[in-house]
C-alpha cells in the first residue's frame, strides 16, 4: 500500500488545492485534511503543509498554527521519522513549532521567518532555490541532483530568516541550510535574495533529515504552462520545473 499524504488545511490556508494537485500529478496518494477533522491526521504517513495565512499571521506568521491541534499529529509524526514538508506558510509553521532547524525544544522556536527586508512588504517574485546540502542529507531532497536548482515563486511578507549570530552559525555548521537563493544560472548572488534572509536561506532541514521547510513555492512553477519560456515539444500540462522537488518527495515515500 502506498504511503498516504495529508495536506492539512488551517483557517487561512490558501494554497492547498495546487499543492494537492501537484502531489497527485507526481504520483502521490494525497488528501486535504480540514482543521475541523484534525483527528483524521493520525491515519497519514506523511504531511505537506501548504501556503497561506493560517490564523491571519497573528503575532507572527505560523505562530498560532504551530499550537493548533493539527500540529500535535505533525509533531508526533516527526518524532517517529515520518516525512514532513512545509512550503511558505507551512515552513513558517514548522519553524514556529520548533521542528526546523529542530535544535531546540518543541514549540519553542529558535529562529523565525519574519518581516522581509529591507522593505517590510509582501513580495511576489520568481526565484531559484539551490540545494545547499548533499541530496541524501534530507530524505525529501534525496532524489535531486547535487546543487539542484529549483525554480519557484517567492510570495510572502515574512520570509527573512532571523536568529542570533551564534544560532545562525549553528544552522550553517549543522547542515540545516537546505536551500539558498541563487540566480537563474545557479550562482549565489545577493541580488537573488528576495527578502533579506540571513545566510541567503530559502529552506531549512532538521538534524534527522525528515523535515524540510522552504519559503518559495515550487508548486507555482511546476507545470510546463507556468513557465514563461516554455520548452518546445513538451506538453504544456506536464509537470516540470519546480515539480522536481515534489517528485523527489514522492520517491522518498515509495522507497
Amino acid at each position: 500500500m502506498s504511503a498516504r499524504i495529508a495536506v492539512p488545511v488551517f483557517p487561512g490556508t490558501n494554497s492547498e488545492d495546487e499543492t494537492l494537485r501537484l502531489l497527485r500529478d507526481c504520483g502521490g496518494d494525497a488528501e486535504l485534511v480540514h482543521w475541523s477533522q484534525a483527528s483524521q491526521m493520525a491515519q497519514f504517513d506523511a504531511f505537506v503543509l501548504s501556503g497561506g495565512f493560517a490564523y491571519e499571521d497573528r503575532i507572527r506568521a505560523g505562530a498560532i498554527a504551530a499550537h493548533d491541534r493539527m500540529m500535535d499529529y505533525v509533531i508526533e509524526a516527526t518524532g517517529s521519522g515520518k516525512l514532513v514538508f512545509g512550503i511558505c506558510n507551512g515552513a513558517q509553521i514548522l519553524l514556529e513549532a520548533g521542528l526546523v532547524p529542530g535544535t531546540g525544544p518543541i514549540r519553542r522556536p529558535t529562529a523565525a521567518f519574519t518581516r522581509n527586508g529591507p522593505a517590510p512588504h509582501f513580495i511576489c517574485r520568481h526565484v531559484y532555490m539551490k540545494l545547499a546540502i548533499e541530496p541524501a542529507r534530507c530524505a525529501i531532497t534525496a532524489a535531486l541532483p547535487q546543487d539542484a536548482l529549483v525554480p519557484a515563486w517567492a510570495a510572502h511578507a515574512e520570509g527573512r530568516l532571523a536568529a542570533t549570530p551564534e544560532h545562525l552559525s549553528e544552522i550553517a555548521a549543522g547542515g540545516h541550510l537546505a536551500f539558498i537563493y541563487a540566480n537563474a544560472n545557479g550562482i549565489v548572488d545577493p541580488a537573488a535574495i528576495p527578502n533579506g534572509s540571513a545566510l541567503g536561506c530559502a529552506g531549512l532541514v532538521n538534524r534527522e533529515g525528515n523535515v524540510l521547510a522552504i519559503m518559495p513555492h515550487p508548486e507555482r512553477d511546476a507545470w510546463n504552462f507556468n513557465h514563461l519560456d516554455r520548452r518546445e515539444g513538451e506538453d504544456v500540462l506536464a509537470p516540470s520545473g519546480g515539480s522536481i522537488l515534489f517528485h523527489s518527495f514522492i520517491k522518498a515515500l515509495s522507497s
Partner: protein
Amino acid sequence: MRRCSSRRRRRRKLRLVNLRDEELQRIAQRLGREPSVVELHAFDAAWSEHCSYKSSRRFLRNLPAGGARVLLGPGEDAGILHLGTHDGERYAIVVAHESHNHPSQVVPFEGAATGIGGIVRDVLCMGAEVVAVADPLRFGRCDDLASHQSSVARGVVDGIGAYGNAIGVPNVAGDVYFERGFDENCLVNVVALGILNEKNVIHSYAPKGAEGWQIVLVGKATDPSGFGGASFSSLTLDARDAELNKGAVQVPDPFLKNVLMRASYRVFALLRERKVPAAFKDLGAGGVVGCSAEITAHGGYGARIELDKVNVAVEGMPPEVIAVGETQERMLWVVPPDFVPELLRVYNEEFGLPDVACNARAAVIGEVTAQQRYVLEYRGRVVMDVESEFLTGSIHDDLPYTEKIYHGAAAQELPAVDLEGIFPRVLAHRDVCSREPLYRHYDAVVRGCTVLPRGAADAGVLAPVPGSRLGVALAVAGNPRYGRIDPAYAAEQAVLEAMRRVVAVGAHPIGLTDCLNFGNPRKAEQYGAFVAAVEALARAATELDLPFVSGNVSLYNETSAGNAIPSSPIVACIGSIDDIANVVTPGFKAPGSALLWVGNRELVAGGSVLAELLGVKGTLPNIEYDAERAALAIVRDAIARGVLRACRVVADGGMLTAVARLAFDALAAGRKIGAEIDFGNPLCEAGGFVCEIAAGSGMDVTGTLQIGATIDGPELIVNGTRFDIERLHEIWSQPLAQLYP
C-alpha cells in the same frame, strides 16, 4: 411603527439621509403615510445612485449585451461568458467590475481592500470559484512622497495586496496612472473572474417555486461599520467631511473571507450532489435590506425578515443600522427549508465560522413570501412594510445634459523630435515606466494556474480548469490623457486597447466589462460627458461585436471645488484560449526576425506621452473599425500559423516603447536581443501591435507593415540613433521604486 416626526426627519435628512425632497414626497405618497426611520434609510440606500443607477440606467441599456458567448448579461451580481469545452463539459467565466473610489480616498487601505472583498463576493455568488482579480487604479500626483496623494497611492496598493493575497486569488492584470485630475479623488476599480461548469450557475434571485423558502444570512456579525455607504458613494467628496465619512467605510476581514469562500465552495458541491436549487447573493450596498429585497423581488416574490435574527457584533444597535449597514463579508442564501440544516452545518460546524470571527455564522433570518411586499420585523413590531418593486425597481432620474463637441480636427503639427534626448524621458514618464514596484506586492501566482503573471505581457493569462488546456486572458484599459480631451474618444480607445491587449497574448476576445467613473450628473456638462462615453462604448462594442456582460457606474467623482475628474471609462476585456500551448510568450525570441507594426500607424501625437512632454496639443489618431478589424485578422493569422514569436500593443509611450519592452522581456529571460528600426516618428501611439515574426515564416512581411528587424545583442537602433537596452531598462525600472519600496 416608529415614525419620523418631521423635526427628526429634517435632522436625519440633513445628517445622514441623502434622499431629495421630491423623493421623500413620492415615498410618503405611495405609502400613504410618513415613512418609518428604517424605511427612510432603506429607501436612502436603495434609491442612491450607487444601488439604483437612477441617472445611468437609461443609457446603459444601449450597450450591446448579447451574443452566442453570453450566458448571462448585466443585471445580477456578475456576467457570465462561455469559455470552452473540456472533457465534454462546458465551462464559463464569471466576471464582475466595480469601483471603490470614495472609500479609498477617505480610508485608502480599508477602502481598497473592501473593494476587492466586494468584487470577489459578486463572482462567488454566481456559484463560481474565484480565479483572478485585476485593479485599474488612478491616483493623483505622487512626485512628493510625503503628500496625501502618495499616502493614498500606497495605502490602496497595500489594501488590495493584503486582501487578495490572503484569500488566495492571483492578481493578474491592472494598470495605474498618476495625474493631477485625481489629486482629490482617486479611482480604485476592481475586476474579478471566476470559473464554473455551466450546469452549476447559481442566480441572484429566488427561483420558481421559492415561496416559503428560507432566507439565510451568512458571514460576519453585522456591526455599525459601513452605515450609509451606498449613499456616501453617491455624493461628492468634500475634504471637510472626510473625517465624518470614515464611519461609512466598511472594515475588511480577508481571513474570514478565505474561510467563507472555501465553505461556500463546499455548499456548491452539496447543492450539485443533491440537485437542490438555490439563490445566492452578495450583501453590498444597502446591506440586509438591499440584498434580501432584491433577491426576492427579482424572482417576483416578497420577503418577511426578522431583524432580531441577524447576528450582530454589538448589542443595542438601532434597527436601521442592522437593516442597511454595509458590514463586509456577508452573503445571503435562499434555499428550500429541508436544505437549511445542511447549510448551517457546513458554515457553522464544518468551517466553524463562529470560531473564525467573533459571532460570525450562518443564520435563518426570514422567508420568501408570495405577496410582493417587503416586511421587516424588529422586537415583535413591523418596522418596514413596502411594495418590493417600489423599493427596488422604481426610481429613475431624467436629468438634463449638455451635448458637446469635444475635439476638433487638426491641431498643431509635431515639431521635429530629438529621439536621443526624448526617448529616455518617455520611458521614465509616470504613465510608461515599470509598474513592477507596485504589482510585486500582489500575489500573481497563487492557485498555481497562472500562465502569464501580471506585467509579463499585455494581458494576464490563466489556465482556470485544472487538467484542461483552456485558458482565459484578462486586460484593462482607460487612458486619462484621452479622458481629459474627449470622453467619447477615451471610451472607444479603452475598448480598443483592452481588446488589443487580449489579442496580443494569443486570446480570442469574447466579452467586455466597464466601470464608468465620471463627475456629477447634476451638472449638465459633467453628465453630458458620461452620456457621450456610454454612446461611444456602445459604438465600439457593436463594431467589434463584443458584449458588455457586466459593469458599474461611479458618479460624483469631483472635488470640493466642483471639478470633475478626467472622464474615466475603464474597460476590461476577457479573452478565451482554446489551447494554452498557443499563448504568445513574452519577449523577442531570436535575432533576424521581422518586426511589424500592424494597426493604426498614423503619425499624430494627440493625447500621447510625447505630446505631453513636448507641450503640444497634437491631433488625435482616427478610429477606423475596418482597419482595426483588418489588424486583428493579421495578428490572429500570424498566431494561427505559429509564426508570431512575440507581440506587444502600441499604447502609452508609442511604438518604440513597445519595441523596448519586448527587448526588456527578452532580457529578463536571459536573451540579449535588440532591434533595428527605421520608421517615421516612433513615439506616436495611435494603436496597433508590434509583432516579431519568425524568419522564413512565409508571411508577406515585405509590404508597408515592416518597420525593422530584431538583432543580436542588447541594442536598439532607431532611425540611426543607438540606445543601450540595459541602460534603457534601468531608466524604465526606477521611477516608481521610491513610491513603492
